[in-house]
């Protein structure tokens, strides 16, 4: 190994780091350490000039190891690797110390934070000293795509990909396509027909030769890696094996069960219906109470199950506008019926939505504000003299009055939850789930459709509640990624895989037993374990299980981590020594 010449760069991140960590002091102190050729700090290391700084230093000082202390490597590891590569250095001769998310943002004592940051930098230096060059490798992308979910999101994505001439396998758990949109009459705010729209989409999907739809099918397990996934389907007649390069999860939503919300009386009072039940009434043109009468009063309760810690803390995004849509639809068929909305904030934020809100108000809808967090309206059966079916009681916030609302039909705008199968799908596809039960995206802002697993995309309401245009946009965005990946045809694969040192392998088979991907096999000829580097994902379980240390995880080798530990504790060791000296 060449003598290490290390460059250390410490980022201010504006003031994000520098307000809590004495960046300059660390730079100076590090500069005096052995093997350190360059030690600098800069306001934004990730910016163009920051990266240029590293590149020019590599060229000028012939650096062969780089450490950047900045934000989380999950954000910028790739950025810096790329920069280093541009300077002609192997990108893996690089290590990041996370001194923002795990130091400056979480601590309040400048001295302690600086100490900690310093030890993290030293640990990174110790680790990077043992880093090895890793070479990039690519695999071919299978042009077929698997899409889980045959709702509007899944179908749009399927069509986008299939119409470009590539194969799509569309998996639907139900016996028909269409998802929730097929249960909806009209869309907001322009009142176009969801039925016509979804029927036309289903037609297109069924007639597209590139799309193969599997009904009544669930995915249990997916193997492989980006570009080369595979799954086995158990169909009624026979098993079927699918191979594909990418997948989109579009498993959609599940309406909250309103029976759990006691006040609202669903199940207890016959004329309390959910939004989807009301859509059926609209599709059939039959807005009647259970007793078959035309309603004189209709109450629409917003935010049922949303924005309330007891049920779902989040906003379901579409219910306000859907409720306004109902208001307009009811008004067109029943001009004399009183329409009341119990809402908490009117979230009419989309294009044309505020206008729609105002239009609805003009058609004599009464908007009553309640406190969705603490004070859900309570519904009871009306008395004989009430001349209606149901009475709702609530505190009205805009007037400050306790009021009663007469109602013959009550429509509950129930919240959207992720479908119950997300857990199973997440497990099969290897993606995470956020605290609200939706799929977790790679980055909430800059990459809401990708996941931490390459080749797996999420779109539509399985990522978070959203309306049709937004779901469709996500479907298209996911399709864009996949089209890109297919048209390029190749993808780089994980380099940080396991590797066997054949000289010391004891042929004990331990690694083969612990590998979750069956990536290790036994070479009967050589009597050693062999790693299939395409399948290996680099978890390192084999490495920690190997009794002889023959198998190691690249980029996370024992040597690297042990010296990282040493480096990590060097500062506190020095400190305690100093303390002891003082005591003496």
């Amino acid at each position, binding site marked *: 190994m060449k003598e290490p010449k290390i460059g250390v760069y410490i980022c201010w991140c504006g003031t994000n780091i520098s307000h809590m960590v004495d960046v300059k002091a660390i730079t100076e102190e590090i500069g005096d350490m052995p093997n350190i050729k360059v030690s600098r700090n800069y306001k934004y290391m990730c910016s163009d000039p920051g990266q240029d700084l590293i590149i020019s230093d590599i060229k000028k000082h012939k650096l062969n190891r780089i450490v950047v202390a900045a934000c*989380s*490597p*999950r954000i910028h590891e790739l950025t810096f690797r790329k920069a280093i590569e541009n300077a002609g250095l192997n990108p893996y001769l690089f290590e990041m110390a*996370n001194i*923002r*998310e*795990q*130091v400056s*943002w*979480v*601590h*309040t*004592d400048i001295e*302690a*934070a600086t*100490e*900690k940051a310093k*030890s*993290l930098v030293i*640990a990174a230096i110790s680790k990077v000293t043992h880093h090895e060059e890793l070479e990039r490798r690519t695999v071919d992308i299978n042009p077929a795509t698997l899409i889980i979910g045959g709702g509007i999101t899944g179908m749009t994505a399927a069509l986008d990909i299939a119409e470009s001439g590539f194969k799509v396998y569309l998996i639907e758990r139900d016996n028909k396509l269409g998802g929730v949109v097929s249960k909806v009459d009209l869309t907001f705010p322009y009142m176009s027909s969801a039925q016509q729209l979804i029927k036309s989409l289903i037609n297109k999907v069924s007639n597209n030769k590139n799309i193969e739809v599997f009904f009544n099918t669930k995915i249990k397990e997916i193997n492989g890696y980006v570009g080369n996934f595979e799954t086995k389907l158990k169909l009624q007649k026979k098993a079927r094996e699918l191979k594909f390069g990418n997948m989109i999860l579009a498993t959609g939503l599940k309406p909250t069960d309103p029976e759990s919300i006691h006040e609202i009386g669903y199940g207890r009072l016959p004329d309390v219906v959910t939004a989807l039940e009301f859509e059926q009434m609209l599709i059939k043109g039959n807005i009647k109470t259970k007793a078959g009468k035309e309603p004189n009063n209709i109450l629409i309760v917003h935010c049922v199950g949303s924005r309330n810690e007891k049920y779902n803390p989040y906003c379901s995004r579409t219910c306000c506008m859907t409720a306004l849509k109902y208001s307009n639809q009811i008004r067109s068929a029943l001009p004399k019926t009183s329409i009341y909305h119990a809402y908490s904030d009117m979230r009419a934020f989309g294009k044309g939505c505020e206008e729609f809100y105002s239009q609805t108000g003009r058609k004599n809808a009464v908007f009553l504000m309640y406190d969705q967090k603490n004070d859900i309206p309570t519904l009871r059966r009306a008395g004989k003299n009430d001349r209606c079916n149901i009475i709702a009681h609530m505190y009205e916030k805009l007037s400050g009055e306790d009021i009663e609302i007469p109602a013959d039909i009550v429509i509950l705008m129930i919240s959207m939850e992720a479908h119950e199968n997300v857990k199973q799908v997440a*497990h099969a596809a*290897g993606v*995470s*789930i*956020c*605290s609200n039960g939706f799929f*977790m995206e790679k980055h909430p802002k800059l990459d809401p459709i990708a996941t*931490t*697993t390459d080749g797996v995309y999420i779109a539509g309401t399985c990522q978070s509640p959203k309306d049709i245009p937004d779901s469709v946009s996500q479907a298209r965005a996911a399709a864009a990624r996949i089209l890109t990946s297919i048209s390029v045809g190749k993808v780089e694969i994980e380099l*940080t895989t396991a590797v066997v040192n054949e000289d010391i392998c004891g042929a004990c088979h331990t690694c083969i037993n*612990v590998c*979750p*991907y069956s990536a290790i096999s036994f070479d009967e000829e050589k009597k050693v374990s062999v790693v299939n580097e395409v399948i290996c*994902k*680099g*978890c*390192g*379980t084999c*490495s*920690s*299980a190997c009794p002889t240390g023959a198998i190691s*995880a690249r980029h*996370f080798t*024992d040597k690297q*981590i*042990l010296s*990282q*530990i*040493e480096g*990590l*504790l060097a500062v*506190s*060791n020095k400190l*305690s020594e100093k*303390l002891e000296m003082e005591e003496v």
Partner: protein
Amino acid sequence: MEFQPTIVSFLCNWCSYSGADLAGTSRMKYAPNIRIIRVMCSGRVDPTFVLKAFSEGADGVLICGCHPGDCHYHEGNYKCLRRFLLLQKYISQMGINPNRLRLEWISASEGKQFAQLVDEMTEVLIQLGPNKFKEITQPA
């Protein structure tokens, strides 16, 4: 000066490291005693890493992984759990209080839980006092 313990912590890349990052992006405050090492999976945590940390003077070691069933590599966290249970017995035989070693599940959305965990463990270690293991293994 009050005794300030040092905790070496191994966090899996997918859940726990993200969780620690989330604590940061949410600006939750916790004790500065923890030093984090990123590993791809809690299953990668070799027992020697833990022993190395103690022998280098760490006062506590914390391993965090995905919740059972959520492992990015399917079952690495289970393997970690098995090793952890054995390791706890082992270190107590070597004279290290088994409470100095902890294994916890932290998901990517549990920034708050992570911050609380660090504070809690720091508190426990302050009660336990400094780790003498280093002095035994590496007498000055």
